[in-house]
């Protein structure tokens, strides 16, 4: 009989689940934001917006482990009946994909004043917000007096043992974007040749930029190519590492501006615009620089106080964002042949 009661209870729970799950929420003004910015950085910003504006923020966060198949594909799949109001991306390549696919709506935020035209979409479908860039993270203790690498082409330098230097797999995330930018900057054949030689040399090709950072911090790698926010997180934690901005003589490093966009057909349009304005404000950009997610303001491209020498201007690659996006697919096809076999 006890068993019978237990099973009866289970059946009742089964039947009630959809009802319990779908209890109607409060009717406060709400804004839905999908963001690929790390939760630890984005959460305080969104909380601040909520307390200032009285608009309840409902966020969905992405993770690096989803290999860029997370929120962007969710937005594409939801395109016919959008649920999100704002897409706040930590980089730009996937935002351009969404713009191409018609997922983003036009909105020229008054808060974008002062941003260079390069970082504002002419159709108003996205706007840049702060920037990270690609860096070489060096284990200073292991390197000793030896001069640090200064270019991504040092990955091919035989004086560095190949199994002690590393990059993230250039098929996902910002490393994929960096590869695409190289295709544009130095030409497809030179870029292809560069990556072929990196692979042939046996340079460690790792799971992600954070893995590169962790292995440099652990001393398993002498140095590796990663993102400035990952590198600065290691510096902040007191790891024996140094950050080098590569290719400052000629090529420049890849700048990774964050992007903010309003979703086409956003269900809470006014609240969405309000959030976009807030995110694009210099105050938010500074807060993100202070927290270590961004290292540059797009308004002056000078390094802010943090893990690198302040005041320096970062020389960026000249490849335009749309060109980088255009070369992305062919670059990926070729790199898959090299790195996935």
């Amino acid at each position, binding site marked *: 009989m006890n*068993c*019978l009661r237990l*099973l009866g209870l*289970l059946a009742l729970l*089964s039947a009630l*689940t*959809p009802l*319990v*799950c*779908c209890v109607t929420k409060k009717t406060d003004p709400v804004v839905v934001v*999908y963001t690929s910015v*790390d*939760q*630890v950085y984005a959460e305080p910003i969104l909380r601040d917006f909520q307390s200032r504006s009285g608009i*309840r923020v*409902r*966020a*969905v*966060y*992405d*993770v690096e*482990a*989803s*290999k860029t*198949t*997370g*929120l962007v*594909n*969710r937005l*594409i*799949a939801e395109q016919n*009946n959008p*649920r999100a109001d704002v897409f706040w991306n930590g980089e730009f390549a996937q935002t351009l*994909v969404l713009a191409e*696919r018609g997922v983003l709506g036009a909105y020229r935020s008054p808060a974008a004043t002062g941003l260079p035209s390069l970082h504002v979409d002419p159709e108003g479908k996205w706007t840049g917000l702060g920037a990270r860039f690609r860096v070489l993270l060096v284990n200073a203790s292991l390197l000793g007096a030896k001069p640090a690498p200064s270019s991504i082409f040092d990955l091919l330098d035989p004086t560095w043992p190949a*199994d*002690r230097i590393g990059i993230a*797999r250039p*098929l*996902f995330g910002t490393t994929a974007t960096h590869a695409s930018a190289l295709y544009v900057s130095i030409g497809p054949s030179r870029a292809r040749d560069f990556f072929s030689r990196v692979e042939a040399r*046996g340079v*460690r090709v*790792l*799971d*992600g930029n*954070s*893995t590169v950072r*962790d292995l440099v911090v*652990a*001393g*398993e790698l002498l140095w590796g190519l990663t993102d400035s926010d*990952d590198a600065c*997180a*290691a510096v902040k934690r007191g790891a024996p590492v140094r950050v080098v901005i590569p290719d400052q003589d000629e090529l420049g490093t890849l700048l990774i501006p964050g992007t903010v966009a309003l979703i086409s057909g956003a269900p809470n349009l006014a609240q969405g615009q309000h959030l976009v304005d807030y995110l694009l404000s210099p105050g938010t950009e500074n807060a993100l620089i202070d927290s270590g997610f961004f290292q540059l303001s797009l308004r002056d491209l000078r390094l802010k106080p943090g893990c690198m020498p302040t005041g320096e201007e970062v020389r960026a690659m000249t490849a335009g964002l749309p060109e980088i996006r255009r070369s992305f*697919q062919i670059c*990926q096809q070729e790199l*898959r042949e090299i*790195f*996935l*076999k």
Partner: protein
Amino acid sequence: MPAGTEGDFPEIAYPPTRGIRAKTTVRIILQGLFVLMVFGPFCAVALQLLDPGVEAGRSWIELLLPTGRRGQLLMQSAGLATGVAISTTALGLLAALALWRCRQGRLSRLKWLALVMAPIPPYIHALAWMTALRFLSGGAVGAGPRAVHGWLLAWWVETMAFLPIAAGLCLLGLEAVRPALIESARVIRSDLKTLGLIVLPLAAPGILGAFVAVLLFSLTDYSVPSIFAVDVYTLEIFAEYSATGNAGEAFLLAAPVSVLAIGAVLVSQLTVSEAASAASPRVLTPMAPLSLPDWFKLIEKGGLFVLGLQILVPLVTLAAQLERPARIFETVQLAAGDIFFSFYVAAMAAVVCLAPALGAARGLLSARGRNRLWWFTAVLPLAVPAPLIGIGLIVIWNRPGLAAFYDSALMPVLAALTRFLPWAALVVLAQMRRVDQSLIEAARVHGKGTVMSWLRVDLPLVAPGIVAAAGIVFALTLGELGATLLVTPPGRSTLTIRIYNYLHYGGSADVAALCLVILGAGLGAALLVWAAMSGWSWLARRA
């Protein structure tokens, strides 16, 4: 009549009563629910291929047939998965044998703790083992020929990550063996021969189930191989999906993995059906533990040692990364909403899966002739990459008028059901196969009616399998990421999503604290299974 009883009892022709008709209707509804839940997202993604709005990059044939580099990748994946499945099943079986033979004392009560690490994502196992190896080798995990060490590490870490599931399924298989048969064999054979000739063949459903489960988990896992720079086919699917955003094409690319999965399950089931029919009917009777030679006990203990290592290494490395209690409290407090939501979703998935799993298990139990399609139905979606299941759910549920459902916790529950319902059905099936059919026949003859006898006899007899299935679904749902990420309602997040977020940030202390919370949940699930198995023994004694 179920497969297991054929040949032992004559077929009795019962006149169709209202109760039987109601039972059949309920079974059809539950089976329909199973097919809808499992195949709905699968079909929705497949239909994307017919969407004229989606730009087709390559031809279907080109995507479906893994030739050249992709063929090589598929072979590599199959090789790694087979290696992992063999080692995990062997180790799991040895550990399960040692636990199974402890029929009395403390160890017998603690044996279901083997499942405790099941909800910890393989990625965390990888990080734990990398930390341990770095500590043991003085920071030289990267030393040695890269290709060799990558494969070895990926194989070892996946073996460790999937060992709890394998040990649990092997243990279920062993527990299903009828003690009376063992006792009969012991009269004329040594215990070692009884083990080889009677116990293992009769426990084959569980053992082969473990092999196939691990094979599928390994085939579809990209996180561990990716960490150790091992190229596998699933990474190709993700790279394609990431570059093109075309779910239909990614679905076609995943088809060869599905074919491998179906092949593995069908081959295992051909073997299982023979073993199962030889094993029934069953009545549980007390049994003295098998007395095995010392060398065998030593090997068994080796398996048990590795099982312990699989719990201890992540536990110690996680504990070593914890910071002061105030920081742990702060992390857990910050994640309180995610913890609650994760447990809620996992509990709901565990509860809701039961009814359709029962229906599907009944279908699988009678899977003969055309009914063998049931195996195809249950297995096909197991090898579909999780993000595609998420996309399928979005296509189905994101419609005007369904916002109340779509923006609710129902979506991650559905994602978990789509992914793990087949596993629940297989676990319930294992329990159904061990039920003594004579009890059910007797209840039908003497009972108050079909529905009441089903509620009072059939269901309590299958109850341990139901609770075990719920425990497994609970554990797997807690660690789910790929599909959940795509359908989690805005404003909600799960513990696993937060852990992966911290991993990127490099917050190892936070990751450790939250993983230990998951571990606590795993412990809860293991205790649930233990309670179910104890309940089963109690019921069996009463019967």
